[in-house]
């Protein structure tokens, strides 16, 4: 383990030394100022640490007027730079005189004899406490050394603590935790019971509770490695990716609408599915991030790489009339800068948009360097969300792949058997219109005149034909254009169509017309007398008379030689069926062709865009010649540009000799470069928070001087290095955390322990965070046996109260999904920014207008209404009750046991069982007295009970199920 304990103890001076800053060792210069430092034996007191002890005082009390921002700076004094803090001021005084507290104006001003001269001035903030004053005095006495802010210090591998008498150490993580617990005199809680560990690991890693089978499998495994094996199973579960994609969606501000006033829909769910797959594949967070920030810039970028860049197209766009596209394009770029800074660097750069950061060393120019990196993409707040990537939904891709296989098989068969290669019909139109074609109807009403010729004749083939007409003279026609699978015509092919001429009212003329790109509609085949109704030159391909009116009262197959209508070598994309007066029906039209050609044509068509393909907004760079220049905006306004700024990183993230960062791809590489300490610290902290409810740095989003300092700095660095050295792979990293003793502790606490560490910052016990909004619903659906296992695809619309979507400028309706889509996991619920799903919103889901690092966990009475009364939860309680009754034999005890096993993976205590049993007995009696109430409680909205059931019994168990689903234990991760 550690070889040099002293070295670790004095880590800060060591680090500072490594930065080439002189360090005055503790003990020197302390004597003179006497009241506190002098009392301690000099060697026992470590020197004051600037970063963790002094800088926070400056940040909270002084930086506002004496910090990095030159515009806000008073008296030319700044405390964030040592040279300035120690320089002579106009008055001649020096705020900080290293080694000489008595000469330092700073100490005089925070404790002046005249209270009106106090710093910070009365009204600008509270005065410094005695402790803070003493700390400053000691620090000055020690020579006033400066150090870098903790989060910017290079990552150095901390030595592992030696903790005498430490027990139950499973991972180095536990040593860091034990060291602090020992120092605080707190005892760690014992390991939680297996049922708690099971539920905890399931909820943290997959977001769902275990199924009964999974519970049984875990309890059946009696080896010491059972929990380890469980964690491995969970990391490999397809539910893992869904759970973490939902988490990432808050950071990425993923939504299914564009935001702002109109808040129209946007198709971007394929990105969400990409994220699910990426978490499951776990190819490294560096790759995950790089693809999303700059997948389009990778050499040989695939469509999947480009799809990842939709990450930064989740910015809002404003489609309202009269808005300035440039204003909102700029707002989107600003959001990309802020989001990138927050997620990967923990830097709240937002304020630097308008002015140099008041607290962190980020200038406004730094901000616009980052801005420049994002300012040259082609998107520009356009209504069509261009540029977009066409993405083929998985079911369509599967259908096409299957068809391709079929065609390959047919092709092989045709090759084997020349007889099979003879002419075959390739139908264009029989009982269905070709998918994706544009449909036109003239003279028949508004829709395609399908008919089964009832009472006249059956269709020539299939279920139906089309056409008709009436006594009225004059032209009528139906036609198709923009055929998605155009027809290429060879010399020995024949166009065919079946016609049925009415005996009672035969038309004067029937005409078939084809549309080619080259000649338009100038391809007509005419039957009957020339009525001149459809144009063209009689006797030419544009009006070729091919015969008399076919015999009435029966189906006739007409075959047209393409040469006669000028279609040789043409590509047909439109076909019209026209008549002059009378009644006629058509059926089964298409191309009679050679089998090999038919297969080849269809294969070619399979490569064309499919109408079901979706268009996902992505990032793409502007062409070099059009690339935007970036200017600093005065006070952040896009209407007030100042000097031009070149792309790059903020100065704090660069060092002399670094290659310039000129594009997003280089930015992504630098985020994950070995010399960047911020990204690994920030990410390791985010994952820790997901597993422990609170980050080692509580402000996940802010690692700057205004953010919280880490509770366990060495542990954070240890984890950051571990994550980086593990190839940025998430699953092994989470596995380490999950298998630590700290993660496995019981959550049980006592008033005394609570008083010692109310926020559990020392991790003596496990946290009990409330489940996230989506988890609460997913869990209810899962234990009810309703949850759909489907992964991915377009968003769904589970029931929500009527009227929630009455939004201005939008006639968009919430059409409640039916079937399994009613019961999908929460991450698939349609997310409308101006009106998020109410049950999620009430449980603190953010609106996803901007990046959200943390969800505040509130506890409000309105949440109780969701889990008690929302029809989705009522339905789940009814199904849960039915499931418990169906899956058990015997009395109430067996049912209660089953319910507890399903929901809590444990048996109820005797007291719990008897209390629930008494409740069910009383409620059953009460419902018996009022059967109609019982039926409502047991079936609305889930539906009728199984035949022969007693409604009162089901109603009573429904209420019990609802009570259990509302328990703190159900709403909380144990």
């Amino acid at each position, binding site marked *: 383990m550690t070889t040099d304990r002293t070295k670790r103890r004095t880590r800060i001076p060591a680090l500072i030394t490594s930065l080439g800053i002189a360090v005055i060792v503790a003990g020197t210069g302390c004597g003179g100022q006497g009241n506190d430092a002098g009392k301690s034996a000099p060697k026992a007191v470590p020197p004051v640490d600037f970063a963790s002890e002094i800088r926070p005082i400056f940040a909270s009390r002084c930086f506002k007027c004496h910090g990095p921002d030159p515009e806000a700076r008073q008296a030319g004094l700044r405390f964030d730079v040592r040279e300035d803090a120690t320089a002579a001021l106009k008055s001649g005084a020096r705020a900080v005189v290293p080694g000489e507290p008595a000469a330092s104006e700073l100490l005089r001003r925070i404790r002046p004899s005249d209270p009106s001269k106090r710093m910070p001035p009365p009204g600008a903030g509270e005065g410094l406490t005695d402790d803070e004053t003493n700390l400053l005095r000691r620090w000055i006495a020690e020579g006033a050394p400066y150090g870098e802010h903790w989060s910017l210090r290079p990552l150095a591998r901390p030595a592992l603590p030696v903790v005498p008498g430490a027990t139950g150490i499973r991972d180095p993580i536990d040593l860091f935790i034990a060291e602090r617990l020992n120092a605080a005199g707190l005892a760690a809680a014992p390991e939680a019971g297996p049922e708690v560990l099971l539920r905890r690991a399931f909820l943290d890693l997959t977001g769902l509770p275990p199924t009964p089978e999974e519970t049984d499998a875990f309890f059946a495994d009696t080896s010491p490695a059972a929990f380890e094996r469980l964690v491995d199973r969970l990391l490999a579960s397809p539910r893992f990716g869904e759970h973490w994609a939902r988490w990432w969606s808050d950071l990425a501000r993923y939504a299914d609408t564009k*935001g702002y*006033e109109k*808040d129209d829909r946007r198709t971007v769910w394929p990105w969400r599915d990409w994220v699910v797959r990426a978490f499951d594949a776990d190819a490294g967070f560096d790759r995950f991030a790089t693809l999303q920030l700059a997948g389009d810039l990778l050499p040989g970028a695939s469509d999947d790489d480009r799809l990842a860049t939709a990450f930064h197209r989740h910015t809002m766009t404003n489609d309202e009339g009269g808005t300035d596209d440039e204003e909102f394009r700029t707002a989107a770029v600003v959001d990309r800068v802020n989001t990138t800074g*927050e997620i990967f660097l923990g830097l*709240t750069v*937002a*304020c630097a948009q308008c002015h140099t950061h008041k607290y962190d060393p980020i200038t406004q120019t730094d901000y616009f360097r980052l801005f420049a990196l994002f300012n040259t993409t082609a998107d520009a707040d356009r209504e069509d969300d261009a540029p977009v990537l066409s993405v083929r939904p998985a079911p369509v891709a599967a259908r096409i792949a299957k068809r391709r296989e079929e065609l390959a098989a047919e092709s092989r068969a045709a090759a084997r058997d020349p007889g099979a290669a003879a002419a075959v019909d390739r139908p264009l139109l029989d009982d269905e219109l070709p998918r994706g074609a544009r449909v036109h109807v003239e003279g028949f009403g508004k829709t395609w005149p399908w008919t089964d010729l009832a009472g006249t004749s059956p269709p020539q083939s299939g279920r139906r034909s089309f056409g008709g007409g009436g006594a009225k003279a004059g032209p009528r026609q139906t036609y198709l254009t923009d055929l998605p699978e155009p027809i290429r015509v060879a010399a020995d092919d024949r166009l065919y169509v079946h016609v049925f001429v009415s005996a009672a009212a035969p038309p004067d003329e029937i005409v078939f017309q084809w549309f080619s790109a080259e000649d338009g509609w100038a391809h007509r085949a005419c039957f009957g007398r020339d009525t001149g109704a459809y144009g063209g030159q009689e006797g030419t391909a544009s009006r070729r008379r091919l015969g008399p009116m076919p015999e009435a009262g029966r189906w006739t197959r007409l075959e047209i030689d393409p040469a006669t209508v000028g279609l040789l070598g043409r590509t047909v994309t439109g076909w019209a069926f026209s008549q002059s007066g009378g009644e006629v029906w058509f059926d089964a039209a298409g191309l009679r062709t050679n089998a090999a050609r038919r297969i080849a044509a269809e294969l070619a068509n399979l490569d064309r865009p499919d109408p079901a393909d979706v268009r996902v907004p992505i990032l793409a760079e502007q062409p070099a010649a059009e690339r935007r220049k970036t200017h600093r905006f005065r006070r952040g306004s896009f209407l007030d540009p100042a000097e031009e700024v070149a792309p790059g990183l903020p100065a704090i993230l660069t060092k002399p000799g670094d290659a310039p960062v000129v594009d997003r791809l280089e930015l992504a590489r630098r985020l994950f470069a070995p010399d960047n300490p911020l990204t690994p610290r920030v990410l390791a902290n985010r994952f820790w928070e997901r597993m422990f409810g609170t980050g080692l740095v509580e402000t996940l989003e*802010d690692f700057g001087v*205004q953010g919280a300092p880490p509770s366990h700095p060495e542990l954070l660095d240890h984890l950051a290095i571990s994550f980086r050295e593990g190839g940025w792979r998430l699953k092994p990293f989470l596995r380490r955390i999950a298998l630590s003793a700290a993660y496995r502790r019981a*959550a*049980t*606490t006592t008033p*005394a322990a*609570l*008083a010692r560490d*109310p*926020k559990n910052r020392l991790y003596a016990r496990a*946290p*009990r965070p409330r489940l996230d909004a989506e988890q609460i619903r997913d869990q209810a659906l899962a234990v009810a046996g309703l949850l759909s296992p489907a992964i991915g695809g377009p968003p769904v619309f589970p029931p929500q*109260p009527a*009227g929630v979507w*009455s939004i*201005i*400028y939008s006639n968009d309706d919430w059409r409640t999904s039916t079937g399994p889509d009613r019961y999908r996991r929460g991450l698939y619920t349609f997310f409308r*920014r*101006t*009106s998020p799903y*109410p049950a999620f*919103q*009430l449980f*603190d889901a953010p*609106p996803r207008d901007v990046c959200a690092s943390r969800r505040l966990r509130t*506890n*409000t*009475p*309105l949440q*109780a*209404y969701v889990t*008690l*009364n929302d*029809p989705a939860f*009522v339905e789940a309680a009814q199904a849960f009750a039915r499931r418990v009754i169906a899956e058990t034999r015997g009395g109430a005890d067996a049912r209660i046991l089953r319910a507890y096993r399903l929901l809590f993976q444990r048996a109820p205590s005797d*007291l*719990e069982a008897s*209390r629930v049993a008494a*409740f069910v007995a009383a*409620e059953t009696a*009460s419902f018996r007295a009022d059967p109609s109430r*019982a*039926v409502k*409680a*047991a079936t*609305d909205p889930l539906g009728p009970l199984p035949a022969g059931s007693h409604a009162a019994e089901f*109603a009573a168990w429904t209420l*019990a199920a609802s*009570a*259990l689903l509302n*328990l*703190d*234990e159900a709403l909380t991760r144990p």
Partner: protein
Amino acid sequence: MTHDHDDDDEQVRRPAADRADRAEHADLADGPPPPPGPNRTTASRRAFLASAGFSLGSAALASLLGCDVRSPSVAGTGGRGAVPAGTDRPSHLRSPHFPPRAKRVIYLHMAGSPPQQDLFDYKPKLNELDGKPCPEELIKKERFAFIKGRPNILGSPYAFARHGASGAYVSSLLPHTARIVDDLTIVRSLHTDQFNHAPAELFLHTGGNRPGRPAAGAWVAYGLGTENRDLPAFVVLNSGGKNPSAGKSLWGSGFLPSEYQGCQCRSQGDPVLFAGDPPGVDRDARRRTLDLSADLNRAAFAAEGDPEIAARIAQYELAFRMQASVPGAFDLARETPETLALYGADPARPSFARNCLMARRLVERGVRFVQLFDHGWDVHGTSPGDDLMTQLKTKCAETDRPAAALILDLKRRGLLEDTLVVWSGEFGRTPMNEARDGSKYLGRDHHPHAFAIWMAGGGLKNGLVYGETDELGYRIVKQPVHVHDLQATMLHLLGLDHERLTYRFQGRDFRLTDVAGRVVKDLLA
């Protein structure tokens, strides 16, 4: 003076909690002491707990039995400053910074923005120049939402007259408002930075033009807490058939904890989402189900010791009480026919009138901030559905009587003296006829440079007409009041210093007035 009968009088005008009490409440995760007892199965639960062998102190046991559910004493973490783990309470909730003049707010927002030239800002010059091209300098460098080219001046088609002792001008569209001008403070010199609905509405209510910041009501609830623990502190009611353009971001809590977000009560059906018990579950069954949950939760609390469990029990109890108090608070059947007639409210029909009456009932019960939005004021003049001659008349007819009735009703109940009422749009409208695509209907485009609002109630100078625009009503020439100034003034009346009511987020101290705003002292009594 007529007072309506209210069969739940005990809830009405509950005295404000004293400062210490409020401060304590604000810090705690739980709700208030519950009201005198509904039908509880206390005996059986006592037996259950006794048999569970709980070894809690008597105070804690009392609290668990529903006598007092203040969690810190339950958890044993001591003092009133204790914040139970995991509740994310902001640590610096405050009493007012100085003695307030108003304790609550009713904000009447005419969403879409009424034309000030046709209601409060009388401009005879417009009628003189009616139909003539507007002066070139008005449209130079100006961005309009819809106006193109050089538009024509549009005089108001409605007559103006002076009213009340103050002699304030009000148009013939607002006869009821005209009768109460001496109770109003009319400001004709509001101006904003935004000229599209959603950003301007956000700017007015949250201080920022994009979604994500807390609404004024959330700030006030955060700063002052609530006076009735059976109802939300910040309630939103909408009329006109649509939500306002910017949607729920207008009453969001932004980065404040979400318990401060506006509680949008619906104008039809259940006023609170999901507050109704499911079919087949009556009040007694609900009570017994909650008793079951509470008993099982108490057992968990005894085992786990997590104060959040006690907080959860308390919130379920508050939810139960709200189920009782919300329908009462919203039940207009309890109002006399005289009051219904005063407002012109039909209890069965959603309307602005109904919402005004609701607002009075809510503030009467201690709700801190009631926000009304009435949709349909965006009078561009592209059709009779959005023009000055038909739509504006309709909107005025729908809102004039109830808004005036609200002032009269608050006054006769003694509530107006410490209730602040504000009536406004989100921006003004142009003195020019929009005539989009040559429309023959009269209408006005969006105009951020000047608009007129009125305020009434606690701490304001009554009968004051403040601010002045130029003779065309295009620009302010005297006493401009920026939206941030209005916000600062509202907070000031509530006893809050807009520069001190802050919340740290993303490394910055945010406030409602962003980085600007001044209290308009001229408006204060």
